[in-house]
């Protein structure tokens, strides 16, 4: 193989590839990635970079000047650490039959050992029946507004991702929950066909990596899937991820329908107050009490060895006085992904779930379980 690549594109591609590489190094072969030349497309030479950790794979196709076609498999981190320092405009990658790879950029010359290509579990893009097309902007928003609520530990594996399904109104539904909170986005999309797979659970890691490179995926992302895997393709980048096995819980019973105590609250005010009041918290649950009175929201911390804190500001509320405890981090997580000036909070009792939504846009909602506090 002998190719010439624009150095800037090479670095950006390696950056995407490296994020998929298995960080645990439990299987040495997975610390490598592959480059292979593709058939010329309309006179434009293309090469394919790919990497996998078995769960998640990335395939990125970029233009290159191909002198000799072929493929190599080489340590990803080593190549990336070197290439990111390259200054010259173009980089040449040349492989020999003895598995040596020569990389040169400007006056820099490197000779690195590589691995037999046949040993690498080379990912491939499959033809899958089910698909949907979503604008990249919407996809980024769906991920941002749900992923934070997914479970990070292994206690309930089926919650370690975002469930994607279809509503009766033929919109996509994105849901994530860790048992303490639920986040849901109902998003109309350009085109979709869920066929025989009514619901898939997309793993956290895949969505995090996809989100990072969303901006490089063009205007529309094409998602194809079956009951085992999902593929996200946009522009020059393709991700393929294994799905989380199991069933996502039915979250309808979690979403309260009769929370009659409602308050419209300025989002930024609440964020600042929460940060102030939680600053002295020593409990890992960072408890905060919200106390609603006519036209006023008071926030109160637990008394700790570092002191005590309270804050209050005006809100829209005309119900009975009401008090409820929350984990500050959970409140901040949802407030930070919302963009509206105001939020609508709906309560029922100090022991039952509360709802947070955007008063002017009903695509998003979050449900939060309170803390039982004794202070």
């Amino acid at each position: 193989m002998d190719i010439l690549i624009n150095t800037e594109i090479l670095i950006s591609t390696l950056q995407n590839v490296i994020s998929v590489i298995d960080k645990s190094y439990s299987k040495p072969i997975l610390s490598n990635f592959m480059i292979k030349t593709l058939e010329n497309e309309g006179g434009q030479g293309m090469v394919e970079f790919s990497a996998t950790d078995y769960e998640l794979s990335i395939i990125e196709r970029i233009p290159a000047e191909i002198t000799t076609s072929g493929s190599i498999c080489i340590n990803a981190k080593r190549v990336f650490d070197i290439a990111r320092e390259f200054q010259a405009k173009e980089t040449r990658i040349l492989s020999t039959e003895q598995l040596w790879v020569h990389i040169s950029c400007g006056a820099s010359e490197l000779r690195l050992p590589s691995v037999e290509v046949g040993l690498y579990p080379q990912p491939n893009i499959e033809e899958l029946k089910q698909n949907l097309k979503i604008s990249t902007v919407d996809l980024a928003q769906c991920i941002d507004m749900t992923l934070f609520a997914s479970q990070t530990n292994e206690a309930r594996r089926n919650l370690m991702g975002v469930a994607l399904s279809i509503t009766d109104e033929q919109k996509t539904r994105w849901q994530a929950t860790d048992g303490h909170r639920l986040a849901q986005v109902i998003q109309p999309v350009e085109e979709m066909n869920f066929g025989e797979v009514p619901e898939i659970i997309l793993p956290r890691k895949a969505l995090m990596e996809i989100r990072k490179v969303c901006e490089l995926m063009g205007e529309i992302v094409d998602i194809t899937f079956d009951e085992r895997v999902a593929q996200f393709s946009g522009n020059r980048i393709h991700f393929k991820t294994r799905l989380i096995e199991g069933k996502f819980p039915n979250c309808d019973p979690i979403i309260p329908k009769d929370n009659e105590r409602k308050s419209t609250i300025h989002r930024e005010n609440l964020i600042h107050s929460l940060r102030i009041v939680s600053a002295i918290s020593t409990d890992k649950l960072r408890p905060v009490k919200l106390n609603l009175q006519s036209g006023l929201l008071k926030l109160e911390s637990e008394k700790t060895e570092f002191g005590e804190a309270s804050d209050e500001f005006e809100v829209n509320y005309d119900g009975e006085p009401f008090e409820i405890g929350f984990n500050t981090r959970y409140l901040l997580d949802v407030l930070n992904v919302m963009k509206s000036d105001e939020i609508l909070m709906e309560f029922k009792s100090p022991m039952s779930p509360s709802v947070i939504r955007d008063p002017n846009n009903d695509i998003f909602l979050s449900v939060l379980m309170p803390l039982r506090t004794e202070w």
Partner: protein
Amino acid sequence: MSDSRKIIHIDMDAFYASVEQLDQPQFRGKPLAVGGPSEKRGVIAAASYEARKFGVRSAMPTAEAFRRCPELNLVSPRFPRYREISEQVHGIFRCYTDLIEPVALDEAWLDVSANLIREPSGTRVAERIKSEILEQTALTCSAGVSYNKFLAKIASEENKPDGLFVITPEQASAFLKVLPVRKIPGVGRVTEEKLRDFGIEITEDLLKKDAEWLNQHFGKFGMVLFQRARGIDHRPVEPERETKSVSVETTFDRNLTNLEELDLELQNLTEKLLQRLDRNGICGSTLTLKLKFADFEQITRSESRSLPFDRSSLLETGKRKLHQCCSREYPGRPIRLLGIGISNFGKPPRVVQLDFFEDLKIPV
């Protein structure tokens, strides 16, 4: 030794079910059970009196309950709500005495020998407590009044629901004579059968056996039987007794060696234990497995973790310990009794994050 105490045992009537009927009026007057769904091999935690007419009982598999009563309404338990009401009821108790020993959310003993309203009659204190509970919570309870914990408990069962039953020292022996032995707390299925083999069915039959004979056949528990048959129970009412451990055990109809059968028994016991733990709203971080072999040799094996056990870790650890004992330490030895317990509860946290799936009982 004479006993001149005044002890009240309060037992809320069909507590969980009554709370649900209170909160959800559509279930009033209808057969209702609180418990886990039958498709998850759930069991009934409480049944309303309407459901009991059909033979639905607590600890019965939900599937069996539906066989007995096809129009049964089933709801998932909401322990935080039950705790809330239990707390309210305890508030009423505290107006009368500080000597309160909670048994579970729905059950407590009160020593009102010297009470805060200086009422000499235990019966009148019980009447006032009953009416205040009804007034404040709209729930009924049954009260038993007597001179010790054992008789007070038996008395509270006498006139359920909404009952008040008194056993005076003069009435005790006549009352006890005809009491079936299975009503004595501590007499389970196996002890009951063993007693029956000796021709002992009611307490009067027990009176004919002396302490030595009972000790010989029932060990330490023989002494308890001897005392209870005579209406003796000197145990004090221990206020806010800290729960140190919760355990369940079962004696098998025949000795078991098959690991699969033992696994199944352990699983059933663990479910029972979890239910008991839920009832008290706690879980500890030490698990103890108890095995009694056919030759009555008994061993226990414990394991502690830094965090309290939850359902899956309890099931997993219990099974691992059982396999350790049965396959490695004592391979092939027939087992007559299996028990599992939880201890080391620590301080309950001041702040608890509620969970959709645990607290709203939504299947995950």
